[in-house]
Structure formats: structure tokens, C-alpha cells
């Protein structure tokens, strides 16, 4: 049986089916050195000191993004372009929110991004839903760390989802 196997000549794949494998130089192995330097905990501690300071700017960033989204909504550009711009702003907010401890802002941003991707036609007809989400970002920013409105906070995302369902 082994003789039979040895006699077979494996044809090479050619033309558009050609496949080439190669091993590139592992440059990361050359510059990342284990067993020296710092532990993860030490790195996290050093980064945290810097990021805490950066987090102080986050509320201003959210306010600017909200103002920009409102301007996008009111502009004369084609709706699809405006929607894309709003999506990108919400997407950025969502990506950074958790890093700075603004979970609710991130959740509203996530809801807005999901709505833009899932029901763009509905949003074109019912632009109030977009407005509602943008206002919700402002509200979430204002009350993110306010325990007095815990119930409203827990209901915010559901109410946004309800507004979309109503429009469908």
C-alpha cells in the first residue's frame, strides 16, 4: 500500500488556483522581550494615571458630538450622508464611553448605531427617533453618575427601543 502511495505524483496547483505559503520575519519577537521590563499590573497602573486625566475631557467631547449630530440632522445634505455622519459620531462615543466609565452614554450610542444599521428607511421617515436618541445622549451624560434617577436610567434604553418599534 505504501508503494502505491509513493508512486503517485502530486500535481501542483497552478494559475488562479496557485497558493503560496511563506513565513514572514517575526519582528515582534525581536522587539518584545519577555522576563524584563514590567508586569501587566504595573503597566495598567501607569496608564490609569494618564487616562484619568484624559477622562476629564470626555464630557466636553460628548457635548461637541451631540452638537455636531444636531447640525448633521438639520443640514441640507442627502439623508444617507447625514445618517453616515451621525453613525460615525455615535460609533466613536460608544467606543470610548466604557473606557471613561460612561456606560449609559455608550448604551445610548450603541442603540443609535444599531437603529441606523437596522432601520435606515424608518429613520428617514421618522427623524424624531434620531432626535430622541441624540437628546438621550445628552441626558445620559448629565445623569450618568446620578443615582437619584436610577429608575429612569434603567428604562432609558427600553424607551428608545420602544420608540423604534412604534415607528415600524
Amino acid at each position, binding site marked *: 500500500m505504501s508503494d502505491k*502511495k509513493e508512486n503517485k505524483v502530486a500535481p501542483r*496547483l497552478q494559475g488562479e488556483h*496557485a497558493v503560496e*505559503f511563506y513565513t514572514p520575519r*517575526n*519582528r515582534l519577537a525581536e522587539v518584545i522581550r519577555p522576563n524584563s521590563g*514590567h508586569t*501587566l499590573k504595573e503597566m495598567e497602573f501607569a496608564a490609569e494615571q494618564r487616562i484619568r486625566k484624559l477622562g476629564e475631557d470626555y464630557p466636553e467631547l460628548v457635548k461637541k458630538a451631540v452638537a455636531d449630530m444636531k447640525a448633521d440632522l438639520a443640514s441640507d445634505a442627502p439623508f444617507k450622508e447625514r445618517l453616515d455622519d451621525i453613525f*460615525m459620531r455615535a460609533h466613536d462615543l460608544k467606543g470610548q464611553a466604557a473606557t471613561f466609565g460612561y456606560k449609559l452614554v455608550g448604551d445610548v450610542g450603541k442603540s443609535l448605531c444599531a437603529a441606523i444599521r437596522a432601520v435606515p428607511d424608518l429613520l428617514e421617515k421618522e427623524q424624531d427617533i434620531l432626535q430622541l436618541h441624540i437628546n438621550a445622549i445628552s441626558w445620559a451624560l448629565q445623569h450618568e453618575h446620578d443615582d437619584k434617577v436610577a429608575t429612569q436610567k434603567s428604562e432609558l434604553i427600553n424607551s428608545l427601543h420602544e420608540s423604534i418599534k412604534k415607528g415600524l
Partner: protein
Amino acid sequence: MSSNLFGHNTKYNFGDMKVLIVDDNQHMHNILRDMLLGMRIKKIRHALSAKEGMQMAESELPDIMIVDLLMKPVSGFEMIKNIRNHKDETIRDLAVLVLTSYSTVVHVRRARDSGANEVLCKPVSVAGLFDRFTYMRDHPRQFVKTKDYVGPDRRRSLRGFDGEDRRSNPSGAEIADDGHGETVQISPNAEMTDIEEAGANE
């Protein structure tokens, strides 16, 4: 997924690493910069668009690129494809870490099919960066060149192959059929392990 985080007391020195961040959001640059500085990485370059990122990749030749997917006018997906199709192999083989808020399987798979080495989902953290950097260091992947794809081998089977090595040049051979008339192919939906886990967390 294998990870270096379990050995969190292990020390690593990232001090010689050169990182290029490509993201159109200035605030995200600031976050990443502070995290990388915390990791004692000092050679950090910043590009605010895919076009600028390509130019800096060519002029600076970083050890790794951290790329956002959602950029205008050229997306991160397109940029990675351009890197992988670059005529200069030192650029083509660059390590690319995608950083994205899209943690769905569809987006992670699309990033993989563009030629990304690894994907890290937001929110970004020092632990996440530490884990991906050391994982990429310790688990380098072969590259594959086909008509439709250039980049890291997308198959991630941890199962070794114990059959006969019939390649004429085992270190960089072309692939042949399996000797039984069956063609060995790279499937666009090749096996995923930790990538799918990332998407499943959505």
C-alpha cells in the same frame, strides 16, 4: 483561546516597539497613546486617515499597526488590503491589529479576510493590548498568497498534522493536491477559533 494574561506576573519589555496608530478620531489616539505610554512604548506614530497611515507605514516601517475599521474616505478594511497587496514585502508582512467597536462575527470575519492578524474589540484596555501583542509575538502565523487573498493564514486549527510531508520545499512550498484527487484549498470560511469567540460576546 490561548492567552498570555494568565501569567500576568510575567514581565515584558515593549520599550523597543514602534507602533503606528491609524484612526480618524483624535480622542482615540489620545487614549491609545496614554495606554501605550503606560506600557513603556515610546515610539508611537499617529495617522488620522488611511492614506496618511499608508504613507507613514512606508516611511516609518512600524513593528505593528493598530487600525480602526470605520474611517472615511478609505476604510480600515481597504487600507489593510492595500498593505497586504503592497509591492514591498516588508510593508506587506506588517503585523496589523484591528481595533474596533464592531464585535459581530460578520465584521471580525471581514477584518480577517482583509488580512488583519488579530482583532481587538473596544473598549480598549492595557490588558487587551498586552494580551494581543504578546499573543502575536508568541504565535506568529504563516502567510498565504492566493489570487484573492494575501495575509496571515486564516485557518487556526490547534490540531497538528501528523501525515507525510509531501511538499517539495517544506519551508515555503506551494500546496498540492492531497494525493487522492482532492484539492487542498483555503476556504474563505476557514476555521475560526478565538475570532468567533470575540464575535460571540456581542
